[in-house]
């Protein structure tokens, strides 16, 4: 799949997400939109994990620490061949469904259950440590939200990642600067987040446009070259990315579009997709 197509495909997957949320009558739509390119970069360009090798001990590992962005995760897993997107859209959040509103590791492709914030990084420290102990070359990735960084357990994970020199570990922060109550800096500020994480002994890469797959790929490639310390990628993203209806609006953290909004959002996605194809 060529890069230009991926950029356009991001808007098709966004459509899947919105359809899921319309059918399921709920979902964390804003964060789904901000994290989409991060997940696509990982699953389509970076990670060695496919439906065929999902049980291999050498596969790369991923944990969606910001588990509430599960709709974007389902869309990407489906596009990667782990799930059937029509089945997901039909059953998402419905009675008795396996497609829960947070990751469910009974589904193919999902390593760990998540949903409560602040768990992914410490779990990934364990996964990366196991890789080191077993002399395996796999890499371990997690994606956290920026609001999530108020959880103390995240910083326990940062400490341990440095202590054990886990250069096979890469944590991505979906820095969309909004959480359910408003601006992250008003709720619990991070000041200079890069400096803060650097002071924990991590290599930090700041990606100015975290919704640009090329820029994300470049950062992930750089992370692979770092030795002796883990890498954090701070990806400056736009919450609700893809449609002016949602972009940078805190009240779209968890919201179901009205029919009118739905039509507008889908039209916006289509326009962005066309623009990506004509780039």
């Amino acid at each position, binding site marked *: 799949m060529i890069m230009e197509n991926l950029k356009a495909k991001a808007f098709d997957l966004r459509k899947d997400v919105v359809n899921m949320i319309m059918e399921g009558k709920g979902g964390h739509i804003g964060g789904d939109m901000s994290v989409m390119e991060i997940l696509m970069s990982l699953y389509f360009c970076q990670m060695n994990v496919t439906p065929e090798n999902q049980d291999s001990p050498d596969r790369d590992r991923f944990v969606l620490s910001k588990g509430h962005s599960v709709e974007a995760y389902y869309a990407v897993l489906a596009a990667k061949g782990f799930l059937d997107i029509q089945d997901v859209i039909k059953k998402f959040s419905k009675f008795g469904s396996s497609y829960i509103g947070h990751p469910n590791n009974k589904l193919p492709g999902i*390593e760990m259950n998540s949903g409560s914030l602040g768990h992914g990084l*410490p779990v990934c420290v*364990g996964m990366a440590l196991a890789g080191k102990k*077993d002399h395996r070359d796999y890499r371990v990735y997690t994606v956290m939200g920026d609001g999530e960084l108020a959880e103390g357990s995240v910083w*326990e994970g940062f400490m341990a990642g440095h202590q054990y020199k886990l250069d096979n570990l890469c944590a991505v922060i979906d820095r969309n600067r909004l959480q359910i109550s408003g601006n992250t800096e008003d709720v619990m500020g991070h000041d200079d987040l890069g400096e803060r994480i650097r002071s924990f002994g991590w290599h930090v890469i700041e990606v100015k446009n975290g919704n640009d797959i090329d820029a994300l790929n470049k950062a992930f490639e750089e992370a692979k070259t770092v030795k002796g310390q883990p890498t954090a990628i701070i990806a400056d993203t736009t919450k609700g990315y893809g449609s002016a209806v949602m972009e940078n609006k805190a009240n779209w953290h968890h919201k179901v579009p009205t029919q009118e909004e739905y039509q507008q959002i889908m039209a916006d996605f289509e326009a962005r997709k066309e623009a990506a194809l004509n780039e």
Partner: protein
Amino acid sequence: MNKIPNRQAICNVLLEKAKEDKDIMVLCSDSRGSASLAPFAEAFPDQFVETGIAEQNLVSISAGLAKCGKKPFAASPACFLSTRSYEQAKIDVAYSNTNVTLIGISGGISYGALGMSHHSAQDIAAMSAIPNMRVYLPSDRHQTKCLIEALLQDEKPAYVRVGRNPVEDVYSEENCPFQMDKANILTEGKDIAIVACGEMVRPALDAAKILEEKGVHATVVDMYCVKPLDTETLLKAVEGVSAVITVEEHAPFGGLGSMVSQVVGAKCPKEVINMALPDAPVITGTSREVFDYYGLNAEGIAAKAMELM
């Protein structure tokens, strides 16, 4: 008097098995000394992980290791392990179904005069309420050994609580009947049933001797498997007796007494008296002094049984 606490029995098994199995990992949160696991850290530094004083990290890292094929034993004082990292136990271990054994050391009121912050009188209730979490309180060093060996054979989450101090043997090296998730009936009597777990089993057994001298015949059950509770053995033990006493080093709610009452109440209703710690910070003292104060000793159990006769 036995000098080997149950926590040391755990270390001995892991030291032996780690020679053959490189996937066995021990994790501590600055607790290797209190967990009696310092010899393991010295003997197998590559299979030992120190997380510092960070119980949440301890449990999540264990889950990550387990997800990649390791067999982690996460040992930390039961008071912190069962509450500070409760959510990690719930989500990363039980809900995600990772092969992690949580070892709650110095459980119950082992830390005595250190106070309520260091007591774990809620851990049975808390851990038992988590789906897919098993809860075990072995009664002595021999049973502890058997339990850890059995846990190494399966790949499911478990919480094991042991105390800090050596306890008198209930079993012997030659005679330690053990079947996973099957309680042991230690004595059989027709008058009263005493169901105990963990380090309350030995006093329950001693109480039965006192009662025997008074002409009261007691059945004593070692319910080391609090969850899944062995209801079959429990119902067999309480059949025909006039009353049931449960004994546990735990708060009066949500522990062994609650679980036994549920089963007995549903299947063969009769009086169930729960001997436990109070629903309050316990009085200051050594664990022995505290047990004596609340009647959680052989004499206290026997006296309670006589009241019921």
